[in-house]
């Protein structure tokens, strides 16, 4: 414990430089803006900024990424409250009560509650991350290749199972991601796989190229199909009644605390994410409320529960990422890619080999929780201006930014064409109602999974029984099968009830 406190203090001393503070502030600003504009997301913000950070110190780069991740989740609530359009999917529950409050002239009150619930959730989920990630990483150090192989299969199956409307579609996109990751040199015998004689593919498909294509380019193509402009009604942001932020927070504190605990637990499970956490927290807040009839008509408690629930998943989702190297959602998958690009291997060894980095980013997370209210308050005032930028101007600019981002990273024109290929693939995947997250997570986990399985088979002289004879490995596999069967059953039951009306 004393050692951990000393490490955290050391982390703060590494973080407290002008450059790092500026990185946190820029990350927060970028995250809030991208989170607040419907169609953009913190994931896209991180993917676009990643090429610019290649030559940066990893601590500075990650301070910006993590600040953007947190702020992006909060930013979604601004448009949810003001224009009834969630900036990020996890903010959909905030619209239930946030928008009715705005219609009653209580938009500033709802926005302030969303901000403080998000800040408290961020802060406490970061504390959970610090204590739990360190403990889990210590256990994970004892994992061998079979345990890692089973853990990656577990994560892959869970993410495939819970993403989207169909387990089958999740597994299909995960398999596609898995296939894409096999392009390049074989990790054991170094023979070529699907390189088609192109030297540019010998090192495989670049993660950054894939990320920007799948998320940013596909979004531009989707927007091209919609050609919609969203503008905010500026009059909504003005207060009608006076209120006390402090009294509101104290009144909602029990709900916020409960939602944080649920959010952290849900966030730590791969693939479930902020939207589910917001729904679960909201349902629990409504059940426990003295005025459940106000929910859906402009309840302050509803806004607090939804925002605390979805923001608490941020700290929770970082636990498996940092402690085990397993991403639970799309944004943590992008962060995992960013760690790899900066030459860091996520997982338990990160805590032993780069402990200064881990504690510095813990400090960055705490610092961004303290700075979020400042940026959040400015963002609330600025949002009217931000949303006045028409999408017809915004998306062409983003297209050029994507091009420069990919070109700036590799100086390869072939990569631009590969990015476009992934953009078109992402467009069709989304248009055909297939989930995108398993594709990316399959792509990221394939090298870990393949290497672990092949190492395990070398250890067992080619016997696959090694995965079921090692207790922890067998446990992960059984758990994966059980969860997927359960999710498939639940989805089938939900569909039947919908069909039956």
């Amino acid at each position, binding site marked *: 414990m004393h050692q951990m406190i000393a490490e955290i203090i050391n982390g703060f001393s590494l973080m407290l430089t002008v450059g790092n503070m500026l990185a946190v502030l820029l990350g927060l600003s970028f995250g809030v803006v991208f989170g607040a504009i419907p169609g953009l997301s913190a994931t896209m913000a991180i993917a676009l900024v990643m*090429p*610019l950070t290649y*030559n940066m110190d990893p601590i500075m780069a990650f301070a910006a990424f993590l600040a953007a991740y947190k702020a992006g989740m909060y930013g979604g609530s601004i448009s949810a409250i003001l224009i009834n359009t969630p900036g990020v999917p996890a903010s959909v529950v905030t619209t239930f009560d946030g928008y009715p409050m705005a219609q009653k002239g209580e938009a500033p009150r709802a926005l302030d509650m969303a901000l403080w619930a998000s800040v408290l959730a961020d802060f406490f989920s970061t504390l959970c991350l610090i204590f739990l990630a360190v403990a889990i990483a210590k256990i994970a150090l004892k994992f061998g290749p079979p345990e890692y192989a089973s853990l990656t299969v577990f994560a892959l199956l869970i993410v495939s199972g819970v993403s989207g409307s*169909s387990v*089958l*579609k999740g*597994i*299909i996109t995960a*398999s*596609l991601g*898995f*296939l894409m990751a*096999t392009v390049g040199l*074989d990790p*054991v*015998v170094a*023979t*070529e*796989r*699907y*390189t*088609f004689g192109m030297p540019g593919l010998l090192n495989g498909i670049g993660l950054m190229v894939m990320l920007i294509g799948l998320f940013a*380019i596909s979004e*531009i*193509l989707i927007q*091209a*199909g919609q050609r919609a*402009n969203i503008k905010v009604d500026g009059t909504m942001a003005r207060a009608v009644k006076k209120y006390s932020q402090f009294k509101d927070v104290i009144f909602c504190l029990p709900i916020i605390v409960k939602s944080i605990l649920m959010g952290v637990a849900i966030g730590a499970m791969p693939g479930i994410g902020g939207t589910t956490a917001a729904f679960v927290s909201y349902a629990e807040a409504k059940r426990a409320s003295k005025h459940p009839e106000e929910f859906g008509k402009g309840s302050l408690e509803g806004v607090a529960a939804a925002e605390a629930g979805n923001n608490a998943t941020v700290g929770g989702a970082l636990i498996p990422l940092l402690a085990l190297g397993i991403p639970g959602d799309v944004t943590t998958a992008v962060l995992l890619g960013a760690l790899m690009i900066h030459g860091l291997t996520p997982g338990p060894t990160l805590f032993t080999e780069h402990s200064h980095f881990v504690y510095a980013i813990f400090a960055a997370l705490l610092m961004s929780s303290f700075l979020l209210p400042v940026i959040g308050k400015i963002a609330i005032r600025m949002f009217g201006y931000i949303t006045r930028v*028409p*999408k*017809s*101007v915004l*998306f*062409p*600019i983003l*297209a*050029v*930014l994507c*091009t*420069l981002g990919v*070109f*700036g990273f590799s*100086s390869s*024109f072939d990569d*631009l*064409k590969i990015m*476009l290929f992934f*953009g*078109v693939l992402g*467009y069709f995947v989304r248009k*055909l*109602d*297939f989930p995108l997250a398993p594709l990316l997570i399959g792509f990221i986990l*394939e090298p870990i999974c393949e290497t672990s*399985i*092949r190492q395990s*088979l*070398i250890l067992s*002289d*080619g016997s696959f029984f090694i995965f079921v004879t090692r207790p922890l490995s067998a446990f992960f596999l059984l758990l994966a099968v059980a969860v997927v069967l359960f999710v498939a059953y639940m989805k089938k039951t939900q569909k039947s009830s919908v069909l039956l009306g």
Partner: protein
Amino acid sequence: MSKDMKSAIVLICFSLVLFFFITPKFVDDQGVSGVSPRFFPNFATLILLICSTALLAIDILTARRKSHEALSHKHNDTSSEGVVHPIDYMPLVVAGILLIYFFLFEYIGFLWTTPIVMALLMILLGQRNWKVIVASCLGMTFLFFELFRRGLGLNLL
């Protein structure tokens, strides 16, 4: 034909072509401890094939059940399943413009091609105010040019 059916047929064809033609030609078959470099690509292809076939089967069964229910309830409504939606070509046009942009970027350079492509995309996305188009295209092109040239040392000419 439903979306799922179309996707399943495309995926089945893709996995069969991959398994029988592409993988044998472009992936070697020599490995250690019984696992060759082809093992994982083939494994993923088989999962893809099995799941796509299952998706197709489920879609056919669901469509059949729905049509039986519709017949038994004497519904005249054929539902949206059979409705052919017009294809939106705009995303493909934008993708085509981006592809041309990448070629022009390679041979002519960033500074000359970007404002034209940006303006074209803005018009396609519905922007009609020429002052906004000119100001944002020229302004953003020069801003990005300077940012990436000075920041990352990129040769964009």
